[in-house]
């Protein structure tokens, strides 16, 4: 996928999750739900913004 487009998708996802989080939080739901959302958001950032996989790129391998 075009990385620019992917960035927009991920960002939208993060925004939506934040909105859900805010809604849940202001209604005092069990903490665990908020943790799940926070971890999902974190994983999105790790994977798509921070490119965790690049860490395991071959030393001689190509560059995105």
């Amino acid at each position: 996928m075009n990385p620019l487009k992917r960035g927009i998708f991920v960002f939208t996802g993060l925004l939506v999750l934040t909105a859900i989080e805010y809604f849940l939080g202001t209604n005092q739901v069990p903490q665990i739900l908020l943790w799940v959302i926070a971890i999902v958001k974190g994983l999105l950032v790790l994977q798509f913004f921070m490119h965790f996989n690049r860490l395991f790129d071959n030393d001689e391998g190509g560059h995105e």
Partner: protein
Amino acid sequence: MSSITSSAQYQKKLAINRLGLWLFFASDAFMFGGLLVARFYLLGNRRLELEQTLGLIVTVVLLVSSFFMNRAEVMISKGNQKGFQRSIIVTIVLGILFLAGVVGVEWQTAHFQVNEGAQGAVFYMMTGMHAFHVLTGIIFLLIVYRNGLKGKYTAEKHYAVEASANYWHFIDLVWIIYYPALYLMGLI
């Protein structure tokens, strides 16, 4: 012949630098984790008395800045210098806005003082340490922006951009955990 060797060398250095940066994140994450532990150990299921709207605004500001940071990195990897510079300057402005929101507004209007109980201690220390990282991130980005103007980065070689982007996203990641921990979790 020599260009191939130098490219291979660059790739090797890249791998080394990446690992080093990620290890730094791992280390720093333990510090942020320790503060998170302190928040739950001292306050447990008690929610801090904070302004919800303001919290949401600064969170969104930081999220948008992360989006532009990602955009800047993608732009430079495609060789789009102008787009890279534009995106990075937006990121920096949003970062400064975030700082202003937390330190300038939130700190001044909070319902409690630094020295008022565990709540004050936890809130000011967590946001303070995070804000300190945001500040260093902004400095890092300013350096990258300046060097970008000088045309130091190419589509192939722009590790400094990648590193600053990763650092910025790491700060965002910390806030993704801290925001619910400070504003949303627990009972009032």
